[in-house]
Structure formats: structure tokens, C-alpha cells
């Protein structure tokens, strides 16, 4: 970073070039009937952690694919640190680090070899490669795995090694595609901590996830994506605050048509909105009701409505609205 003249951060002025800029991006795969990405626009400030939240198939990975020069856009504009990724993919590759959705470690090399050779691809001078690899292995808690073949690493260890690899050439923007999918809770937490640490060090991060907790916890701003479109973009707090209703009540109900019940509950006094979360073939349907004021205060009225309609409540959950509720409010369905 020696040539960087001034420290950049989220508070950098409006004149600063966005770390990532996407304008009206469209991607249609050959033979596909619909656009995988359908006119997405957003900009990420230097030093920001930006999350793309949406269900599988929403277009998150394709957007990342275009930004990381692996997917050719159909139209629109995509740039990293001001470099147009379509016009100058080679230039773009030198400023980005990529953590793909599927592990793609080089199994012909050991863990440290993966880092050292990655640095070689990126022209890091030979004497710096080894010490840098050791340092990153240490930071990722992998010092004792330097000689291990990637095949023998656990899922969490492999993911940390992939993150370390993405950092070997000191990228300005790190892209993380579903960074903790498939990891056990502990490994997931470790990855989250590392991402937070990188963000604290000023690395711009763009991550995708279908996990609302992850998006809310890690991101400065979250873009909610569905069917290739960006539905809403704001800080997690603002997104949730924008919802009507200040508490949620989840009800597991048997003996009623969930859609009809949803309409009935929506009409109950103090209710801001109701959605069907799940309708399993067997067992109770789950509905989520957003209410004004205290969840406990609204509960008797809701239970009474269900009983009057002839249904039976088998479980109740009280909570606060989350990003998932924002998504449900926007799309009418859950994230998974």
C-alpha cells in the first residue's frame, strides 16, 4: 500500500473513486429465458463492508462473477477501484482478492504452497512470498497446517486458507461469495471474526450471503437482491427500522388454511403485517405477524383470532424484526 497517498475509509469524501461501482448491470446466460442479473446498480465506498443478501439463485454470485472478471456482462457497467472490469480485466485482477463459493484450493500444493504460488501469479517479489505466507497462516490460525494438503483440511480451515490466499497480493477489494456456507458454527464465527478484522484494517469487502444474521453482523450496508434485481439498499438498522411493526410473533398453527388465517390475522388490531413462513406437508404451518408495540400485549388477541377461526396453536415465538423480515416484506417469502 506504499503508493497510497492518504488513508481511505468509509468517511472518504464524495470525490473518492468508489471501490466498487455497478451501474445497470445485466447478465443473461446463453439459452437462459430470464436475466440472471437484471439491472443492478450500487457503489461501495473504500473501506466499506457491503453485503448482498438474497436467496440462492437471486443473482448475487453472478454479480460477483462479473466484478471478478469471470463472468462476461451482457450490458451495463462494472468497475473496481475505477478500473472497468470488462475493458481491463487484467488490471482489475491485480486489485481484487476472491474467495469463491466452492473451495478451489490447489491440491497439488500444500497449504503454504497455495499461498506462495498465488503470490507468484501476482508478481509478489520472491523474497517476500514466504514470510508473507507465514504471517497470513498465523493470522488465520493455520500455522501448524503449513505442510498440509488441502484435502486434509476441515471445511473451516480450507475456507480460512482461501481467505489468506485472497489476501496474499494485498488486494484493495476482497470479494467473499457465501463465506461461511457449509461451515459449523464455531468455524463460521472464526471466519466472521477474520472478516471483521480485515474490515477494521481498511480492506473493502463485498460479500454475498443468504444468511440474514451474517449480513446484519458483518455489513455496513446491505443490498437485498431477488430475481436479479436490487430491491433495497441501506444499513441493516435502517432496513429493519423501515419496517412497520416493532415486534414479531411467530405462531405454529394446525387445522386452518394458512393463507386465510394470514388475512384474518392481518386484520387484527395492532397488527402491521402477517406472512406465511412455512407450510410443511405434515405438522403445523408457521406464520409470522409483525405487531406495533410489545409482542406480549398483542399475543392474546392473536391467539383468540386463531381459536375463533377453529385452529390450534402449538407453539409461539416472540422476537424483533430482522433483515429476514425485510426480505419477507419485500418478496412475500423467506430467504431459504
Amino acid at each position, binding site marked *: 500500500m506504499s503508493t497510497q497517498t492518504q488513508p481511505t475509509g468509509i468517511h472518504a469524501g464524495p470525490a473518492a473513486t468508489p471501490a466498487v461501482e455497478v451501474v445497470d448491470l445485466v447478465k443473461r446466460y446463453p439459452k437462459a429465458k430470464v436475466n440472471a442479473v437484471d439491472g443492478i446498480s450500487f457503489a461501495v465506498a473504500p473501506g466499506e463492508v457491503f453485503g448482498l443478501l438474497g436467496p440462492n439463485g437471486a443473482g448475487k454470485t453472478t454479480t460477483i462473477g462479473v466484478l471478478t472478471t469471470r463472468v462476461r456482462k451482457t450490458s451495463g457497467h462494472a468497475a473496481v477501484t475505477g478500473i472497468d472490469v470488462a475493458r481491463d480485466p487484467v488490471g482489475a485482477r491485480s486489485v481484487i482478492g476472491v474467495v469463491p463459493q466452492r473451495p478451489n484450493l490447489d491440491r497439488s500444493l500444500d497449504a503454504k504452497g497455495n499461498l506462495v504460488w498465488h503470490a*507468484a501469479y501476482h508478481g509478489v517479489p520472491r523474497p517476500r512470498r514466504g514470510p508473507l505466507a507465514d504471517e497470513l497462516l498465523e493470522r488465520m490460525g493455520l500455522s501448524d497446517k503449513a505442510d498440509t494438503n488441502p484435502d486434509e483440511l476441515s471445511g473451516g480451515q480450507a475456507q480460512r486458507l482461501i481467505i489468506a490466499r485472497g489476501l496474499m497480493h494485498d488486494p484493495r477489494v476482497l470479494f467473499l461469495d457465501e463465506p461461511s456456507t457449509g461451515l459449523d458454527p464455531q468455524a463460521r464465527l472464526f471466519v466472521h471474526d477474520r472478516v471483521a478484522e480485515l474490515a477494521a484494517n481498511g480492506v473493502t469487502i463485498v460479500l454475498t450471503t443468504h444468511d440474514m444474521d451474517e449480513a446484519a453482523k458483518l455489513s455496513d450496508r446491505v443490498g437485498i437482491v431477488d430475481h436479479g434485481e436490487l430491491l433495497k439498499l441501506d444499513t441493516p438498522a435502517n432496513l429493519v427500522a423501515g419496517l412497520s411493526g416493532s415486534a414479531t410473533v411467530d405462531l405454529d398453527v394446525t387445522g386452518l388454511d394458512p393463507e386465510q388465517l394470514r388475512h384474518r390475522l392481518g386484520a387484527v388490531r395492532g397488527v402491521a403485517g402477517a406472512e406465511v413462513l412455512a407450510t410443511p406437508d405434515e405438522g403445523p404451518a408457521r406464520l409470522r405477524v409483525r405487531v406495533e408495540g410489545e409482542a406480549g400485549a398483542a399475543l392474546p388477541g392473536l391467539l383468540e383470532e386463531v381459536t375463533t377461526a377453529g385452529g390450534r396453536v402449538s407453539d409461539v415465538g416472540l422476537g424483533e424484526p430482522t433483515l429476514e423480515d425485510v426480505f419477507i416484506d419485500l418478496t412475500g417469502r423467506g430467504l431459504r
Partner: protein
Amino acid sequence: MTAVTETEPFRRVSPGRAFLGVLGRDVAVTGKELGSFISQVLVQPFFLLFVFGKVLSELGYIAPGYAQLLLPGLLALNAFLVAVQAVALPLVIDFSYTKEIEDRLLAPLSTQMVAVEKIVFGALRGLIGSLVMIPVGYLVLDEVSWDLSGLPLSALLLVLGALAGGASGLVIGTLVSPRRINIVFAVVITPLLFTGSTQFPFLQIGSLRWFQVICALNPITYVAEGLRGALTPQIPHLPAWLCLAALVFACVLFGAIGIRGFVRRALD
């Protein structure tokens, strides 16, 4: 704009360095498994050499001097086929299952150059596979005598043959699906093995015209014939200029198709 210094890439890597990095990885991996690589490339030609060059000629079924004809053919065969296999098989697996090549596709290097690296690397393996045949030939065969003044031309022919092999490997590796790679190898490699004029001089099979035409389509023919012209000129052979021209043509043709195929597989 005040932020101009920031918009410029802060460290533009020269493509040459990135290319050498990617090539270095392949060479280092080969170096680690050099023993198994050498034995892999030696077994088949060794037995061909031993049975046809030694056993059958000792028994009198094959005229003395046949070994002299066979050895350049086997050098040609290995240069081409080892290069084909070094590129094709790993690429099929990389693109379909392991995706291990992705990290190299993200190197600051054009995707076309990553494809060229594959060809160059395959050619290096082909050259090694070919050169290790020389000491083996001298050890197994009794009567090998080469016209040493033909060595520079031989080196050029082997390099071109190995590059053509690497380019052909790129074509196969990017066009064939993993489920078909076994069948493709069986129906492509074996005919290449026997139609490359490696075990017979091309000009003397004129009585089998149709077979001669098929052999003329196999790039190995031009390596083998060129080597005979350079090392054992007493055996009838195709002229050197024809061999060189045919090999350059093969490199350009397969290189162009292979690089296109590679870019198609690498980018969505």
C-alpha cells in the same frame, strides 16, 4: 479529479511475471513427481523399443537396421503424445470438478495467456518425455548411429512437435466432457500412436495409399519424418521444409481452436 492517483492500479504486474508465475507452478508440481512422471512416459515406448527394436530383430523376424528407423519415430511420438496428455487430462478435471485452475485464471494475465501457458507447459513435458528416450534407445539398441550435424534441426522439430501436441491437448481438454475423456483417449491416442509414421517410413507405404493419406493427417508423421531426415538421412524421408511447414500449421490451427475453447470454458 483529485482522486486520480487513487484510481490508478497501485501495482500493475507485468504479464511476463504473471506468466512465469503460472508456468513456475506447473513446473514445480512436475518436479515434485518427477520420478513417477518419467516412469509414466517411458514404459510404453520402452516396450515398443524393446520388442520391435531388440527382441524381434534378434529373432530375425525384423531386418537389422530397423531400430535405426524406430528410435527417431519414438522420440517424435513421445514429444507429441506426452504433451497432449499433460494438457488434456488435467484440464478436463480442472474445468469440470476441482476448479483448481480458477486461482490462475484470476492472475493478472489475459485468459488467452493462461491457455498459452498450458500449451508451453505441455510442450516442456513432451520435450522431457522425448529426450529421456535417447539414453534408453542407446542402452537397449545395439546399432544406433546418428548424423550429429542434424541435432539443431532435430531440436527444432521436437519443440514444434511438442507445441503441436500441447495445442492438441488444449483442444481435447476444452472440448471433451469428463465422462467422455476415457473413450476419447482410447479412440484418439491409439490411432495417433500407429498413424504417425513412427514405426515405418512414410514414403515407403505408398502401396497402401489410403493408409498413407491418413498418416499425412497426423502431425507426428512430420516430426518423425523430419527427425529421420536430420538424424538418419539414409532412410527415405519427407523434406525438412515440408515437415517444418506442416508442424507450424498444426501449431497455429490447434492453438487457435484450443485457445478459443479455453476462453469459452474459463469465462461465463
